[in-house]
């Protein structure tokens, strides 16, 4: 019943508790379950959609698109002043991230391994992938690699690694669609990457029609959770737990691990225009590397609260937001952070700059717009 390889240390800490009540899992199979699986339940029209938990927000051209719990997708065509629900979303699982490489084409990912695609700027969505299919992709890839290693000329260590990946992949299938995707990034209409729990990572080169596993490509043998994938013309960055930070400089074919000075979780990483790396995560950890990840210096974030989201704004300044809703801004390429004096929202999960310059925050109570005038005034200070 237990997953054979629970990688994180905290999971082992829970083992005792799980064992103590492990019997609970075995009963109740006979429960009448007339409730639809959330994967098959279209997101309902929700009277309080605009006030419910939103987990990410992005731009689709001038439009803003936010995703959140219950398969809730919100759209705004007036730079975040008013929001409405997307017309059709085929699932009701929580959606964790969304990205639009063009104004029309976008992808959203979420729990139960779901990948959704919209070709109309977020109005309607269709399912491209779910956890079961994703597990199949991963297991096929693992089988292929294991097969190659058996007959091929790999050394013993690599053979073991391939065999272990296959075991894990088969475990994935056995677990069912219970792993969330946590990050999505598309470079263009064709090439995209999705990452998630337990190192789950897939890529597509045909706009999501077919997917390949990245689990043997990203050097993440312990299956650390991957929280974010972001990229630009030069590089792709994947951030995850226990100090995991991966980079691809060849358009996502090969990934290398960057050594980081912090062993906690990175919830995100971004690259400034001057090629500076900024990684942020648990307990107010914000670290900067000006030499492509070789050396890092810590930036004082003021409070030991999780930094949940970060973006580079149009004026090259950087905004980081922590889980309590506090906003920090750097106007010196990430050398120092200054807390904005905006009243904190009740929490923060994501942020993006709207086309008119306003800052849009997603959080437990929906979305908040911070006027561009305010951000300008902050800079002058």
């Amino acid at each position, binding site marked *: 019943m237990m997953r054979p390889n629970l990688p994180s*240390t*905290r999971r082992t*800490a829970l083992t005792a508790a799980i064992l103590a*009540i492990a019997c*609970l899992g075995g*009963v109740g199979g006979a429960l009448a379950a007339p409730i639809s699986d959330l994967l098959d339940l279209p997101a309902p029209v929700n009277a309080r959609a605009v006030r419910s938990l939103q987990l990410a927000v992005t731009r689709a051209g001038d439009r803003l698109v936010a995703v959140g719990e219950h398969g809730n997708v919100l759209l705004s065509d007036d730079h975040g002043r008013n929001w409405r629900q997307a017309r059709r979303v085929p699932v009701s699982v929580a959606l964790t991230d969304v990205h639009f490489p063009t104004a029309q084409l976008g992808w959203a990912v979420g729990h139960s391994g779901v990948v959704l695609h919209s070709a109309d700027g977020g109005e309607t969505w269709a399912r491209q992938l779910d956890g079961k299919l994703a597990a199949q992709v991963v297991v096929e890839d693992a089988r292929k690699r294991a097969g190659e290693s058996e007959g091929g000329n790999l050394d013993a260590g690599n053979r073991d690694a391939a065999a272990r990946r296959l075991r894990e992949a088969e475990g994935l299938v056995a*677990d069912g669609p219970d792993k969330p995707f946590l990050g999505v990034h598309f470079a263009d209409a064709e090439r995209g990457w999705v990452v998630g729990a337990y190192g789950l990572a897939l890529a597509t080169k045909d706009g999501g029609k077919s997917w390949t596993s990245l689990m043997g490509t990203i050097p993440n043998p312990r299956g650390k959770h991957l929280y974010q994938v972001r990229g630009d013309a030069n590089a792709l960055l994947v951030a995850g737990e226990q100090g995991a930070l991966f980079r691809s400089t060849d358009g996502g074919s090969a990934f290398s691990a960057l050594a980081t000075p912090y062993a906690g979780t990175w919830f995100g990483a971004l690259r400034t225009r001057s090629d500076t790396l900024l990684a942020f995560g648990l307990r107010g950890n914000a670290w900067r590397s000006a030499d492509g990840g070789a050396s890092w210096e810590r930036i004082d974030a003021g409070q030991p609260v999780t930094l949940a989201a970060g973006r580079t704004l149009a004026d090259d300044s950087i905004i980081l937001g922590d889980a309590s809703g506090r906003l920090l801004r750097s106007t010196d390429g990430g050398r120092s952070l200054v807390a904005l004096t905006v009243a904190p929202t*009740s929490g923060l999960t994501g942020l993006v700059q709207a086309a008119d310059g306003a800052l849009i925050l997603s959080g437990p109570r929906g979305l908040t717009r911070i006027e561009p005038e305010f951000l300008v005034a902050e800079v002058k200070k």
Partner: protein
Amino acid sequence: MSHAHAMPAGVVIGDLAAFDSRSGSLGERLLFNNRLVIVVLCLITTLALGYQSLGLSLNAAFEKMIPTGHPYIANFLENRSQLAGMGNTLRIAVEAKEGTIFDADYLDTVRKINDELFLLPGVDRPYMKSLWTPAVRWTGVTEDGLDGGPVVPDDYDGSPDSLEQVRLNVERSGEIGQLVAANYKSSIVLVPLQEKIAETGARIDYAQLSERIEELRAKYENDRVSIHVTGFAKVVGDLLAGLQQVMVFFAIAIAICTAVLYWYTRCLRSTLLVVLCSMIAVVWLLGLLPTLGYELDPYSVLVPFLVFAIGMSHGAQKMNGIMQDIGRGTHKLVAARYTFRRLFLAGMTALLADAVGFAVLMVIDIQVIQDLAVTASIGVAVLIFTNLVLLPILLSYTGVSPVAAERSLRAETMEANDSGHGKHAFWAFLDLFTQRKWATIAVAAGVVMGVVGLATSFQLKIGDTDPGAPELRADSRYNRDNAFMVANYAASSDVYIVMVKTPQYACAHYDTLMSVDALERELQQLPGVEATSSLAGLAKVSHAGMNEGSLKWFEIPRSQDMLNAIITRAPRELFNQNCDLTTVYVYLKDHKADTLTSVVNTVEAFAAQHGSDEIRFLNAAGNAGIEAATNIVVRKANVEMLFLVYAAVIILAFITFRSWRAVICAVLPLMLTSVLCEALMVWLNIGVKVATLPVIALGVGIGVDYALYVMTVTLAQLKHGMSLSEAYYKALLFTGKVVVLTGITLGIAVATWTFSPIKFQADMGILLAFMFVWNMLGALILLPALGHFLLRPKKTVAI
């Protein structure tokens, strides 16, 4: 039935020696030939019961105010012991007027308040919550896994650093909007109460509890801190405190009744006797209640006044009769006996009708109303002794003042002499309604009002129509405190709890949680629902918590292992020991009837669609759930009660009149009043609830008195061959006068309650005043008008 003693005027006997003391019924002889014994017995009884009444207590009990027989409440009571904090909870918000709660002085004040509340009797201490209770914890994520501790750390010392630590812990505690206001300007001490005090087994004394809380308020409130308190216990406490003011209104009402009666009779001694006898009835009632194991509650506290009012009505009738006889020259004892003969049966029937009318309230499965029914029935039964027996006997000793008697005679002579054309203008006006034209107009007007009233009464709301505690005024301290809670906290004070039963150990099964989550999603769509919480919601929060607090994990994990791990940390209010019961808390904007109905219907529909033997969705606990059940019971009871009250009144009226036609004449006006009273409730936005439910029954019970007094005399005259007009005119002069007098007097007296600090009493005052006056008008206008069509002035008496 012999109607001999119903003669409006007996033979005038001025000399007692000429009176045959063996005349009259057995009862009359028994009573009047042993007058002294009766008086002494009554005196002893009064002293004994007066002593007993010192032991009368005023209190309220949560379980007495709820319909314990309703399936929802049965569900609640059945599962109550397994779940904490489901019913009766006090919420005490401590507000920092300047700055935020992250202030050493503020936190110190909260700690002191917390410690004092902890020691109050009746507090369910393990479940008490505040910033300072160990149960309120933060969980945070470190590189090494989950970390947590009390929100106020063990090493808290009030320094800026530790205050900063508290702020951080609060942010990570998940209590924002629950125990801590989102603006950080107040925090809550949550005090669950047990109905019985654990140490002594005694019931909570709400008046005392409320006083203790007011003492705390006085002690800690200053220019920097203010305290807001909500919860059932405080409502009851405030009601009980308000009752002291209520007593003042009773006193005013009694004074008005006395003054008007004196103005009418100009006889001090008989006025005082009527008041005295009515007061004796109240004393007996107040003495009998503790003797029989009853106590007064905020609802039944009105009963003593009602008993007094009814007593005044009957007493005035007796006094008037005696006064008229004495005025004609009859000896006072004989006059008393004559009056007894003429009016005892009518009075007795009227009082029995009252008693039965009140007793009918027993069918309502809410104990406070049953207690009220018992209390009122006892009170009315007592009146039979004090005002129908003791009063005439006392008057037979004292007589009336000669001036008053002469005045009464003069009026009577004048009216009698003028019969023909010069009737007293007012009585002549009322007499018009026995004529075809006016009778038609009156009946037509009655029909129109009845139709309009009936149409309006269909909009009658069941339950509360205002937010907060509708028993109290909208601008009362309590309701302002309640508004504060609603404005500052997501979790309102109106909590509706759905109980979800599963097989053992399945309360946290993935399928169970998915069902619970689906139910929550439906409930969250209701405009009256502010928020919900459940094991499903907790699973999401914990899932995020186990993943370093990242809200991206805010979803119910599909892994049962993960769910099992989660429930080991879940608070006990969400599931029981056996893990076969879990609860969904629904926080409502208010507890208006519409809001509750929408929740009840949603849950019922969901249960019908998704419930099975394996998973059952049960209504309802929490104060709002209980109120929803109460509303359902009240709605049903409102219909049943009216039906039964009228059945009782009709039967009693028939026994008295022996004529269906007369019964119709007497009862139809009452029904019109009932309908109009409901319409009035719609217009005044008063809902039918535990407090207002008895009003209509009381109104019918008291209103029938008027009809009985007028109809009895009219029928007797008709039997003697008078025309309806003549018969009715006689009845007006004899009993009608007093009907007008008491109707107006009682109407004015109860109308003073409108100024009561207690809203439901003000509502009752308006409704009762309306019913007193309108029943009087019905008895004086509609009754003769209907009589015109139904009671033919033939020699033959209606069967």
